[in-house]
């Protein structure tokens, strides 16, 4: 609960900091805010569960872990944003303010115990993202992306709200506990089609937010059009929060598992297929990462399909591993694409990475580790993420979905390795790429954590 209050206050302070003449204090201030929020998050660690705001928000170790991932990702993303000083049009204070506010939304989604809280959380997060997506005002792609995201997002929200209404109609309450009780009654034989319909509509809304197929069509365009820094934000924080919320929702209606598991299973398979096969044919690294984001949503959905005891840890671990690798991949992309820009437009194609190992061995290594982790190669965190997800499915006895996931992982290797091949085995120019020291520290930190969790996933287990 502390991060919600702190981040709201910090967001307002950040907006006011924008009036100050000196632009240089903004970034350190935001980083400080995020560190404070991250620290305050763990005050309640191990003491919960707490229920706040008239039973609308729940705080326990699981939500705190998700909060921790979201806040850590936000810190890293803010750190590599470099204060938005490269673009004269930019409004750093507003961007940072929106980022902080959107984190409040994410935390509400993660800990919701009441559907209204979920709705508010989703909206706070989404509205901020619509604005940030379009923040590159003079760029057509950015505008297109924002409009697309807004229209599609509004539609999804409509579904979600309708679903909540139906659930309210069936159960007479917005509270998760009441819904849980109703579901277990249904398990006893008391049928309610309104409840089913409501749940499905709500799921559709949520699945849209995590870009699961067939609700994924906005993702590639929006991810590609948005400024890369906000793409990173979307693909890590929005996804983590979305999956945390989905987990709570499905866990709450676990009594009717028999009803929804096959729905989620089919969506998981579809998402993996669309994401992985779509990613193979991309010429742009950024667009490939968008599809890869879809495919990872598919893997995470497997854990939700199974929803066994290991699922919870699997989702947390996977989100963390995925966020770390995604941040370093986008971080390298931002540097390289700017360095190789063509006519002022960043070059995000694979060819831009040719010869990166010569131009900057550190960047090439960071990128290689993040790709290996996303591909799920052993000795990286991504491997254990996939491993835990597969074990959760195996515990439920759903082996066929694991086999599909394995096949799709092989496809994944194909497109993730393209960029490794470009940077290590192909020749490019030999102009050295310089990286600011602070930027380097963040990339090295992400890489270090990826390898650390890859070698010793037990460390993480002790934390949870």
């Amino acid at each position, binding site marked *: 609960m502390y991060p919600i209050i702190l981040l709201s206050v910090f967001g307002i302070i950040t907006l006011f900091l924008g009036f100050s003449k000196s632009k240089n204090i903004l970034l350190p201030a935001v980083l400080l805010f995020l560190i404070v929020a991250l620290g305050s998050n763990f005050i309640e660690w191990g003491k919960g569960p707490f229920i706040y705001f008239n039973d609308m928000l729940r705080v326990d170790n699981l939500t705190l872990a998700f909060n921790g991932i979201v806040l850590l990702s936000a810190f890293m993303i803010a750190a590599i944003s470099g204060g938005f000083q490269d673009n004269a049009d930019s409004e750093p204070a507003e961007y940072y303010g929106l980022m902080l506010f959107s984190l409040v939304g994410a935390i509400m989604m993660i800990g919701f115990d009441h559907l209204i809280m979920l709705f508010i959380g989703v909206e706070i997060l989404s509205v901020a993202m619509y604005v940030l997506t379009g923040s590159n005002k003079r760029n057509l792609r950015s505008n297109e992306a924002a409009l697309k995201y807004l229209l599609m997002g509004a539609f999804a929200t409509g579904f979600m709200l309708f679903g909540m209404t139906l659930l309210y109609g069936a159960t007479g309450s917005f509270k998760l506990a009441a819904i849980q009780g109703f579901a277990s009654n249904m398990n006893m034989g008391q049928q309610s089609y309104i409840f089913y319909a409501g749940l499905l509509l709500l799921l559709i809304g949520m699945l849209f937010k995590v870009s699961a197929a067939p609700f994924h069509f906005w993702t590639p365009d929006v991810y590609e059009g948005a400024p890369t820094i906000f793409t990173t934000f979307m693909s890590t924080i929005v996804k983590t929060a979305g999956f945390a919320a989905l987990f709570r929702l499905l866990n709450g209606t676990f009594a009717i598992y028999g009803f929804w598991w096959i729905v989620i299973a089919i969506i998981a398979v579809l998402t993996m297929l669309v994401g992985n096969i779509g990613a193979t044919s991309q010429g742009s690294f950024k667009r490939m990462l968008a599809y890869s984001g879809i495919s990872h949503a598919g893997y995470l959905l497997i854990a939700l399909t199974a929803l066994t005891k*290991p699922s919870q840890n699997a989702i947390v671990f996977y989100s963390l591993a995925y966020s770390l690798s995604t941040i370093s991949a986008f971080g390298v992309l931002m540097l390289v694409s700017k360095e190789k820009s063509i006519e002022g437009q960043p070059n995000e194609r694979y060819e831009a990475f040719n010869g990166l190992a010569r131009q900057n061995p550190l960047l090439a290594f960071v990128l290689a580790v993040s790709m*290996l982790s996303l591909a799920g*190669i*052993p*000795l990286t965190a991504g*491997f*254990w993420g996939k*491993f835990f997800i*597969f*074990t959760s499915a*195996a*515990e439920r006895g759903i*082996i066929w979905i*694991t*086999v599909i996931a*394995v*096949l799709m*992982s*092989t496809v994944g*290797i*194909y497109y993730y*390795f393209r960029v490794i*091949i470009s940077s*290590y*085995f*192909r020749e490019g120019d030999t102009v050295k790429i310089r990286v600011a020291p602070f930027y380097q520290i963040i990339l090295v930190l992400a890489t270090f954590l990826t390898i650390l969790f890859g070698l*010793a*996933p*037990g460390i993480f*287990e002790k934390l949870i």
Partner: protein
Amino acid sequence: MLTLLLILLPIAAGVITLLAGERLAKQLALVGGLASLGVATFTWLQFDPAAGSQFGFKYAWVASGGISFAAGIDGISMLLVLLTTFLTPLIILSAFKNDYKNPAAFYSLILFMEAALIGVFTATDAFLFYLFFEAALIPVYFLSAIWGGEDRIKVTFKFFIYTIFGSLFMLVALVYLYYQTPGTHTSEISAFYQLQLSPAAQGYLFWAFFIAFAIKMPLFPFHTWQPDTYTQSPTPATMLLSGIMLKMGVYGLIRLLLPIVPLGMQQWGFLAMILAVIGIIYGSIIAIQQSDMKTLIAYSSFAHVGLMAAGVFSSSLNGLQGALIQMLAHGINVIGLFFIVDIIYSRTKTRYLDQLGGITQSTPHLSVYFMVLLLGSVALPLTNGFVGEFLLLSSVFQYKGWLGAVAGLTIILGSVYMLRLFQKSMFGPKSKWVEGFQDLTASERAVLLPLVIMVFWIGIYPSTFLKITEPAVNQLLQLVNN
């Protein structure tokens, strides 16, 4: 604890090599490789074949899941650890004559590879086994893709995807088995041996394991990555691939497939056997027609590994012992042969048989070493190839007489392609490519001499090595037959 030392020593040596920089890289790597060999020899002297798994260690890894970081050495592991640590310093030494760019990275990758291989051969936890099995791919992929020939990028990429595709099926199988273990689950390989699985489940598991290992070895029809990768890789990487990494597949068959799914073996073993035998004949016939020496040896390696797999599938004492001794012998011969090809290539700049000829005239040493290794490879009595092939063929013969007869053709076909290789490159009129061909240098002899000694040692007195593995193999067969 010795096992842990064996795994960590090459990693440490690799890191030191990487940090030491360009000038000292070669020497440091060689020292690291020799140190590992020293530790392995020491382990061998302490080793008691009858005592089962020894020198082990076990640390909780994912504690709640009962997954541990555990390894130990039994007879089968011991033999392969010896093979790995014996060959690695020779591979490092064999690279000395070529100037590879960025040598620190090059030699450290070889050492990392050695660590991963030792890990595979000693792991007693199934997931640790899997981890090393995959991790071994990464160094050799980079070795081949950075320092390889023209087509390296495409070829090594195919190799990587192909092999990882196979091993992912093994991962699914291991996860499944893990959930079949009683109580709080465990992933110890020995616990998997005790499971009572239904015949249907064993059938599926058989294929999951089979595909993983068949791609790695490779067996027909999963071999298409192999000849290109062997040809395009720099010779040290080819040596690692053919000399040691191929053995990971055979080892996997022996360690996992045979004892875990004996009923699956009964259902599908015959088909697997047929595939292995097809591979033997098919590989040999293609080898006869090759004119690139490296490709020729690649196909011969493909044919040999088919016979090893056939021996394992016969699940008899002779078959397994034959496969193990043949792994040792094949590792030695194939590394020697690839090295000789590399020597010839580095002096003549060609590997094509039609362009070579008449090398013997100026090279007494090279001719002798080449001949000995080649005879080992065609399984002449008193050389190392003979022991293994004899045991293997006898096991296949017991399994099904006619299969044994077909597989036996390998001896004839083997001598055809090998002698053709020798004749076309070494004898005949001197071609213009081999003008001024120098005989072996001291460092080249330092690589070949230990190999030749081993050829005779195994050929004349194989029981030094057979007795390391015999108790372990008997134990394994007991499991299979129950």
